[in-house]
C-alpha cells in the first residue's frame, strides 16, 4: 500500500514537472511582458531602455533557457518574486491559500452534507413528487452560471436587503472579529455550494438507484433488515464507491467555480491571486499558483483512489496483499 502511494506520488511529481514547462511556455506565449507594462506606465522609456531591461530580466534569452534557469532555482526552493506584490511568491501565497481553503472547504462540506441525504431520499422515492422537486432544484443549480448567481445573491442580500456584505473578507475599519469574517463568507460559500450541490445530488441519486436494485439488497430485506437500515447501512456504502470517484474528478470544476466566485466577491483567495497575476503579467506568481492548482487536483485524484480502496474491499492496490482493510 505504501509502495503504491509512493509510486503515485512519483507519477504526480513527473506530471507537475511537465506541467511547469507547459505553463511556463504558455505564459511566455502570452501577448505582452512586464517591460511592456513598464513602458505603458512610463512613457519616457526609450526602446533602448526597454531592450536593456529585457536583458536585465533575462527576457531576451530563448524560452527553454529561461525555463531551465527558473526550474533550477525552483528546485532550490526559490520561486522568485511576485511583480505585483513585490515579495517572494511563497510569502504571498499562504494567506490567499488559507482563504480559498475556507471557501472551498466549507462549501464542499455543505454540498456533501446536502447532497447525500437529498440524493438518497430522491432515490428511495424515485419518481415521486419529492424526487421531481429535488431533480428540478439540481438542474437549476447546475444550469445557472456562477457569475450570474453571484450577482443575484449580491443584489438580493447586499443591495435590496442589505444584510450581508458583498465583497472582501472583513469590514472596513476592522475589529469585526469572527462573526464579521463569517458574515463575509456567507455569500461566496452559498454561491459555490449552489454551484456544486446539484451535480453531487445527481451522482448520489443515480448511484443509490443502481445499488437499491442489486440482489444483496433483496438479501438484506430477506434477513429482516428494516428500510432505513437497508438504505443507510447496506446501500449507502456501495453507492459511495462511484460517488467518491466522480466527486474527486469534478474537483477541477469546483476549483474553477471558486475562481469565478472569488473574483465576483473580490474575495482574496487563490482564484483572485491567479486571475490578478495573469492579468498583471506577474509571471512567477501565475506559474506557481497554476502549478499549485495542478498539484491539488492530482492530490484529489490520489485521495479518491485511496478512498475507493477503503470503501471497496474488492480493490487492492498492493500485489500479493489481501484486500482486507
Amino acid at each position, binding site marked *: 500500500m505504501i509502495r503504491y502511494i509512493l509510486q503515485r506520488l512519483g507519477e504526480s511529481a513527473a506530471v507537475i514537472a511537465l506541467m511547469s514547462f507547459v505553463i511556463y511556455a504558455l505564459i511566455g506565449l502570452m501577448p505582452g511582458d512586464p517591460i511592456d507594462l513598464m513602458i505603458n506606465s512610463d512613457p519616457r522609456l526609450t526602446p533602448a531602455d526597454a531592450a536593456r531591461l529585457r536583458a536585465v530580466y533575462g527576457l531576451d534569452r530563448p524560452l527553454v533557457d529561461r525555463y531551465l534557469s527558473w526550474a533550477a532555482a525552483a528546485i532550490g526552493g526559490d520561486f522568485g518574486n511576485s511583480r505585483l506584490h513585490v515579495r517572494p511568491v511563497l510569502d504571498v501565497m499562504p494567506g490567499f491559500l488559507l482563504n480559498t481553503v475556507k471557501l472551498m472547504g466549507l462549501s464542499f462540506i455543505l454540498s456533501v452534507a446536502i447532497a447525500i441525504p437529498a440524493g438518497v431520499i430522491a432515490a428511495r422515492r424515485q419518481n415521486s413528487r419529492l424526487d421531481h422537486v429535488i431533480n428540478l432544484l439540481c438542474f437549476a443549480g447546475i444550469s445557472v452560471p456562477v457569475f450570474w448567481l453571484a450577482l443575484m445573491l449580491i443584489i438580493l442580500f447586499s443591495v435590496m436587503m442589505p444584510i450581508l456584505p458583498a465583497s472582501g473578507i472583513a469590514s472596513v475599519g476592522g475589529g469585526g472579529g469572527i462573526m464579521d469574517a463569517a458574515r463575509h463568507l456567507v455569500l461566496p460559500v452559498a454561491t459555490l455550494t449552489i454551484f456544486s450541490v446539484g451535480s453531487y445530488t445527481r451522482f448520489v441519486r443515480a448511484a443509490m438507484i443502481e445499488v437499491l436494485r*442489486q*440482489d*444483496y439488497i*433483496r*438479501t*438484506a*430485506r*430477506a*434477513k*429482516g*433488515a*428494516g*428500510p432505513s437500515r437497508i438504505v443507510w447501512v*447496506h446501500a449507502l*456504502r*456501495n453507492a459511495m*464507491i462511484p460517488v467518491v470517484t466522480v466527486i474527486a474528478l469534478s474537483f477541477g470544476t469546483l476549483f474553477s467555480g471558486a475562481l469565478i466566485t472569488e473574483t465576483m466577491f473580490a474575495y482574496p483567495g487563490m482564484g483572485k491571486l491567479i486571475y490578478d497575476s495573469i492579468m498583471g503579467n506577474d509571471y512567477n506568481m501565475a506559474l506557481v499558483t497554476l502549478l499549485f492548482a495542478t498539484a491539488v487536483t492530482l492530490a484529489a485524484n490520489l485521495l479518491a483512489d485511496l478512498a475507493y480502496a477503503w*470503501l*471497496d*474491499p*474488492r480493490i487492492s492496490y498492493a500485489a500479493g496483499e*489481501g*484486500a*482486507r482493510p
Partner: protein
Amino acid sequence: MINAGVAPPALEVEDLAVVFPTRRGDVLAVAGVSYAIGRGRTLGIVGESGSGKSMTALAVMGLLPAPGRMTSGRIHVGGDLVSGLGEDDMTRIRGERIGMIFQEPMTALNPVFSVGAQIAEAWSLHRKAGRAEARDAALALLDRVRIPEPSRRYDDYPHQISGGQRQRAMIAMALACKPEVLIADEPTTALDVTIQAQIIELLLEIQSEMGMAIQFISHNLGVISEIADDVAVMYAGRIVEYAPSSRLFESPRHPYTRALIATIPRVGAHDTRLPAIGGQVPHPLALPPGCPFSDRCPLADDDCRKAVPQLTTQGDAHRVACIKAEAT
C-alpha cells in the same frame, strides 16, 4: 405452540395470485396457488422460466418486486397469518420465522461487508445481544455449514471465497435465527455438480437437526428428486400436479409432468431418442384458452380449451389439474 392437538403446517399458502401490471395488460404471474409444508418436510416446486415458481416464493416473503402485487391469497407461518401485515411486522418475520436463499450467492451477498459480519447481522437483527455474542453466533453458524476455519473466514469478503462457500454462508445467514421455514430459490443452479450435491446434503442434514420446512424451487427435476418429500409442478403460473415425490416420479399423471420427466436425458439412455415437448412456454399475455398447456399437449381436445382445469385429488395425496388425467 400446541393448540388443539394437531400442529399447523409450518407454511400454508392458500389461493395465492400475483399480478404484474404492464403496458400491454396485467400479467397473471401466479394464479390460485395453494400448498402446505409440514415441519421438517420439503416441498419441491419445479417449473420452467416464467412458470411463477420464484414469484410464489417472493410473495411469501413479502418481497415481490414492483410493480408486482398479491391480488389474492392467505399465507400462514406456523398457523399465524402473515399476508397483509404491514412492512414493520413483515420485517420482524423475515429472517426470524422465514429465511431465504437465492440462486447467485455472489450477487446475493453484499460485496463491502465481510461474510462473518453479514451472518452476525442476520442473527442480531432479531436478538437483543451485543457484538461479541453476535460474532460467536456467526462463528458457530459458519462451522455448522462446514466452512473450514470459521475464525479466519469470518473476516473474508464474499469475493475472497469460492462459490460453494458463498452459498454455505448464505445458508448460515438464512438459518441464523432458526426459522420455521426456509425458502430456497434455485440455490444450486449456479454451482458445479459436486458442490450442488454437497449443498443438498448439507440442507438435508440441517433440516433433520433443526426441523425447518423447506420450499425448494428448481427447474431441475433431478435436484428436486434428491431433496423433496412432495413435489408441485408449475406451468404458466399454476400448479398442474402436486404429489409425494416418489409418486410423482413413478406415475406422473399430468401430460406436462410426464413429458418433462421423459425429456431429461439420463445415464443409460444412449440409443433412445428423447421425446421432446413441442412448441415453447406460452407468453403470459398470450395463454391459450382453457388449459394453459393445451397448445402443446398431445392429448388436448376441445374440452381442454373450454375452462382452466382445477387441481383435483383422485382419492389420494396425488392431485392433478387435467381433465384427461384419468384417461392416461
